[in-house]
């Protein structure tokens, strides 16, 4: 797994994808923090994390779209599958590498709560809760992205489908108020991406939310492994 992790990390930076992702993320995060906190004199870090949620949804596919699609296109999956590597280690190596790339971006955003603390607004637990929520949420989105990229050798198709799936999950919340069926409303609330995430932005460590993200992450990672294995037949 470590070999795949190192390969992926070096490829992110060698192919410029890593730099492009970090640049876009930093520009958007910087803009959100400046306008949402500094310029509007808002000491609440919560507003930054709410916007970060929407931002990450649309920039994570930049990283995940190439993962398995490129291997299929370059035929390098033939190398991976004939080396003494298990499918689990290939998938997890790619998953953790993508997560690490986003982690680098998130580490830089640590400057924002520090700036707010310097200016007099310190909320350690709230900040921790927000970061935990972001990491859990990002893990799930990455797992979904990996799963989708395992279906196609086209990065563009992988990216578009990833955006589509995430958009559907994202829009579920907007649809909920218009649904009259109470049972369906409850089910949608349970599976709602935003409602499971939103509690973390208040600094609430909700076990149901943690379980929700961990389960979906695990599920999509397993589905990726199963899909790759079945496509080898």
């Amino acid at each position, binding site marked *: 797994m*470590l*070999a795949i992790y*190192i*390969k992926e990390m*070096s*490829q992110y930076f*060698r*192919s410029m994808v890593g730099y492009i992702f970090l640049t876009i993320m930093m520009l958007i995060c910087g803009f959100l923090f400046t306008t949402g906190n500094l310029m509007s004199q808002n000491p609440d870090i919560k507003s930054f994390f709410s916007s970060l949620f929407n931002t990450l949804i649309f920039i994570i596919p930049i990283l995940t779209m190439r993962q398995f699609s490129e291997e299929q296109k*370059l*035929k*390098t*999956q*033939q*190398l991976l*599958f*004939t*080396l*003494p*590597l*298990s499918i689990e280690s290939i998938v997890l190596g790619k998953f953790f590498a993508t997560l690490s790339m986003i982690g680098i971006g998130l580490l830089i955003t640590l400057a924002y709560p520090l700036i707010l603390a310097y200016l007099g607004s310190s909320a350690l637990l709230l900040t921790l809760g927000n970061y935990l929520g972001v990491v859990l949420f990002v893990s799930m989105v990455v797992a979904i992205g990996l799963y989708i990229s395992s279906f196609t050798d086209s990065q563009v198709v992988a990216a578009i489908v990833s955006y589509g799936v995430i958009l559907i999950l994202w829009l579920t919340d907007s649809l909920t108020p218009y649904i009259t069926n109470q049972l369906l409303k409850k089910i949608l609330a349970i599976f709602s991406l935003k409602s499971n995430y939103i509690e973390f932005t208040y600094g609430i460590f909700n076990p149901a939310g943690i379980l929700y993200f961990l389960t979906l992450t695990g599920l999509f990672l397993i589905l990726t492994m199963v899909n790759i294995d079945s496509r*080898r*037949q």
Partner: protein
Amino acid sequence: MLIVDHISKNYGRLKPIRDISFNLERGEVLGFLGANGAGKSTTLNMLAGYFPASSGSISFDGFDIFKAQLLYKQGIGYLPEIPPLYPDMTISEQLTLVCSVKGISRKDRKEEINRVCRMGQILDVKNRLIKTMSKGYKQRIGLAQALIGRPGLLILDEPTAGLDPQQIIDIRELITDLGKEHAVIISSHILSEIASISTRILVLNKGYIVADQPSEELLNTPSKNQILNVRILGDKTKIMERLSSLSGINRVDVQECCEQGCMDYNLFLEAGADVRRNLSRILPGETISIMQMKMMNPTLEEIFIDLTSTEDD
């Protein structure tokens, strides 16, 4: 030792590989022959563990490909038809990746990379990006990659594709050398290459093995229609008259030759006929002499066509 036991591959109704079995010892170079679509690459991919066989078993040095997949793969080196390389990596980085997966310790990696680079003749370019390399270089990088960790079984699919003549000779010599210690499976469309490198030849046709013999034996297989080449000194008309009186000859082709007064006569014999004794008895006279006589062995191409057309019949 590689043991391939009754493997088949099914894609629904399509059966590209049907019940293949063979063994391969270290020190043997097995040439894989077959027309396009005969199932060569499918078989090699199964042997390399790229995808599983639908039935049957494969093991190398006692490690079963299904039960001990990682240990099995540890013992093999595979060069597919298109070398699987990451264009954004340097050669050295690509080989380091394979070294780390194959469990070569950090302190031994540099030495191992230099060793395989020397064997693949890419030592002078090992720090260059793969995307800038030519097809021939990529082929040699793929070969060097397959040699990492001194695998006991080497599977090489078209290893000389894209190489220049000198490189082809070098790689053939390298494979011959490797064949002394490793078990090597080589597939190629160039039949002369298979004939010169392999110690054993396996011919696949429509998913079945139609021949599995030592190269010498296969290359000396008498063809269905034997040809006796005779160089005769003397008058062509008289010679043709005498030849026509011999039984067992279907047809005679006459060709000019370099020796003065001589002609080469290719006698196409009937199945099982041997006219050499009769020829020696009736031909020579005061003005006619037999200068040379040899049975023509069929070329590998002819043997290949013979074998693969037999199945159709």
